[in-house]
């Protein structure tokens, strides 16, 4: 069985546990094993890397080292966590001196990172399971959605290797749940939360997300589908503050959960600040129509 | 196994497939390279200790390219023949091969991961997944300075007998650079560090087939295979090229960039 070390990240376990739940369900159904480890916060590139980069590297490397003895690659459900772990992995891989520095610190707690395992974003696993996902789908959700990647999954492309200007993966993946990714203005811009701006400069952060939400609204979408818990939090919480839009926010795994026929409550949709009631009603009607 | 080889040789000679077979035989209790022809007594044939026969085949081939020869051939012999063919020294199409697989003991002794030739009708059991381990682990752990010290000590033992070169299957130049006064002054012992051995190492990069004969030939016990084996490993790591395993051109001999 294909197996990964599950790196849920703080938001998915401590703020939006529906994401953790949805992930566990989706991966179980796909027959992909997830193993838990004693992980800490990734730590985030905004606050920690900007505050003290060497500490950020060491903490990131500690996380990476956890599953190394089992040879499992850590899988993230958040583009932020992915950005940190991936950047740490990349920096260490290309700089033996830095690797030495990190391991000097890890050595103090009898840990070591050899660079043998590397982080992987969960969508990069799902893209190999398109057929299985289509098989498992019970409901064609039929939603028009706005997809959001999260900057650190795509960029910098010299490190991620992704097509940062014209990505298509999420269009394809939401299509598997019977949804349509609707193009909208500035579809790839930042959610405004990263870099410590959400906490440090809340006004700027809200302005950025407000523009983004209005662009989504103009495109008449039924929901926002993201692959980043941190952006997820920004989309959900800021709408509550701004009160100008009310677009339900779904993590991709929650979307697949719904398509696989999981009840919304089990995916903790009811705990989102932006109500998903209309969405749920639509699904109920769909289900009835289906029967 | 020897009987099987005898049978094969007799068949080949009797049928006229080949005129001569290069093999080893016992002469007064010593195993020596020899040539068997039709009607020769094959009872003296021996398979061990092994001895490189490719050079002999090359020399015979050069004397008369049309002369039909078969050669007793281990994995290392075949690799040597292949590398010779790449260097225009022998025509493999005009050579018959009697492939013999080495047993585990011999293979381990030679630290050889491919102790058999690639031909189909192999005599003996093919050892495909031999666990060799890293014989040079201790060496690799040394620092650069320690390595230098190590080699200084080893090369001091050299008495310039040329045994390593004389036995080497891949040394087929008419005039050897190791006898050029420009690099090595006559009558100086040991030869200037590290000229003799480094010239040989350079010449064998991408060429050494790992037969191990140089090390067994060395009367001073210099671990020559440590150099040559590491060179083979480097070729694999840097260029993904295994000497003697492919028909590919040696990556050190091309104009293309990597």
């Amino acid at each position, binding site marked *: 069985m294909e197996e990964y070390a599950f790196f849920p990240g703080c938001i998915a376990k*401590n703020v939006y*546990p529906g994401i*953790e739940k949805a992930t566990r369900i989706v991966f179980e159904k796909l027959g992909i094993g997830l193993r838990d480890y004693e992980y800490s916060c990734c730590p985030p590139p905004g606050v920690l890397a900007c505050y*003290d*980069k060497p500490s950020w590297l*060491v903490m990131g490397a500690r996380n990476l080292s956890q599953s190394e003895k089992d040879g499992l690659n850590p899988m993230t459900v958040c583009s932020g966590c992915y950005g940190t772990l991936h950047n740490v992995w990349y920096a260490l891989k290309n700089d033996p001196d830095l690797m030495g520095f990190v391991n000097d*610190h890890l050595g103090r707690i009898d840990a070591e990172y050899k660079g043998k395992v590397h982080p992987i974003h969960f969508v990069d696993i799902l893209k190999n399971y398109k057929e299985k996902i289509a098989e498992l789908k019970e409901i064609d959700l039929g939603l028009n959605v706005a997809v959001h990647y999260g*900057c650190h999954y795509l960029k910098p492309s010299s490190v991620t290797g992704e097509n940062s200007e014209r990505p298509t993966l999420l269009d394809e993946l939401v299509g598997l749940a019977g949804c349509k990714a609707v193009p909208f203005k500035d579809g790839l811009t930042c959610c*405004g939360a990263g870099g410590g701006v959400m906490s440090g*400069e809340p006004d700027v952060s809200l302005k950025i997300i407000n523009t983004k939400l209005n662009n989504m609204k103009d495109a008449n979408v039924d929901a926002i589908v993201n692959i980043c818990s941190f952006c997820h939090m920004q989309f959900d919480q800021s709408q509550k503050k701004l009160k100008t839009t009310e677009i339900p926010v779904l993590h991709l795994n929650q979307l697949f959960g719904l398509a696989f026929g999981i009840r919304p409550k089990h995916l903790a949709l009811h705990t989102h600040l932006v109500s998903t009631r209309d969405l749920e009603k639509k699904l109920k009607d769909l289900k009835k129509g289906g029967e | 196994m020897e009987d099987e080889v005898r049978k094969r040789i007799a068949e080949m000679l009797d049928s006229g497939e080949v005129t001569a077979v290069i093999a080893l035989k016992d002469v007064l209790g010593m195993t020596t390279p020899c040539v068997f022809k039709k009607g020769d007594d094959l009872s003296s044939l021996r398979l061990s200790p092994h001895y490189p026969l490719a050079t002999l085949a090359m020399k015979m081939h050069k004397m008369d390219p049309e002369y039909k020869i078969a050669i007793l051939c281990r994995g290392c012999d075949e690799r040597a023949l292949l590398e010779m063919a790449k260097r225009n020294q022998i025509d493999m199409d005009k050579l018959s091969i009697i492939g013999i697989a080495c047993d585990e003991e011999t293979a381990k002794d030679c630290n050889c991961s491919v102790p058999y030739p690639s031909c189909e009708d192999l005599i003996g059991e093919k050892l495909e997944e031999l666990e060799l381990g890293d014989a040079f682990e201790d060496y690799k752990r040394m620092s650069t300075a320690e390595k230098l010290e190590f080699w200084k000590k080893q090369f001091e033992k050299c008495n310039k007998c040329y045994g390593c070169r004389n036995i080497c299957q891949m040394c087929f130049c008419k005039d050897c650079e190791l006898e050029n006064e420009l690099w090595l002054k006559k009558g100086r012992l040991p030869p200037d560090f590290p000229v003799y051995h480094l010239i040989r190492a350079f010449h064998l990069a991408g060429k050494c087939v790992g037969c191990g004969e140089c090390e067994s030939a060395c009367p001073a016990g210099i671990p020559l295979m440590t150099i040559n084996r590491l060179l083979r490993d480097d070729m694999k790591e840097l260029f993904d090229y295994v000497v003697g395993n492919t028909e590919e051109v040696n990556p050190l001999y091309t104009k293309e960039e990597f």
Partner: protein
Amino acid sequence: MGKSVKEILIDGNGYACIQCGRCTGSCPSGRECSLRTRKLIHMARMGMDVIKTEELWDCTTCFTCQERCPKEVKTTDMIIELRNLAVEEGYFPTMSDVPKIIIKSLYDTGAGQPLSPEVSKIRAIIGLKKEAYDVSTNAETLKKFQRLLDGLEITKKGGLR
């Protein structure tokens, strides 16, 4: 370990900048505030007090500028490095308390965003363990983790020691 502005410019290829402005034109944050990535690089190169500017903290690290740069200037990476330098030099204009709170939480629980009793309840309802399996699950591991942090600058800068 800390880099000077000059080292940051060298490592980030900042001297290659031709001030074309594609970075600022691409910047989603600059549209809403006074952040001008191009200007930050120019200031750094001219030896001006770039680390004292408040704009330095308006970048969301979305990497669009770095992505679009025709001269391979690592603009975002440089901003992150410049922020490190600013913290070291004591210029930390806006969110002085926020990182300290996060660092404290990180030290105590291993999580930047700690678990609240409400979410813990939700976790149980949807069939997850009340608390996720992580560095704080095992007291011994948490202690080790804290020992790791004790040896890092972050706890000092976060006011924990």
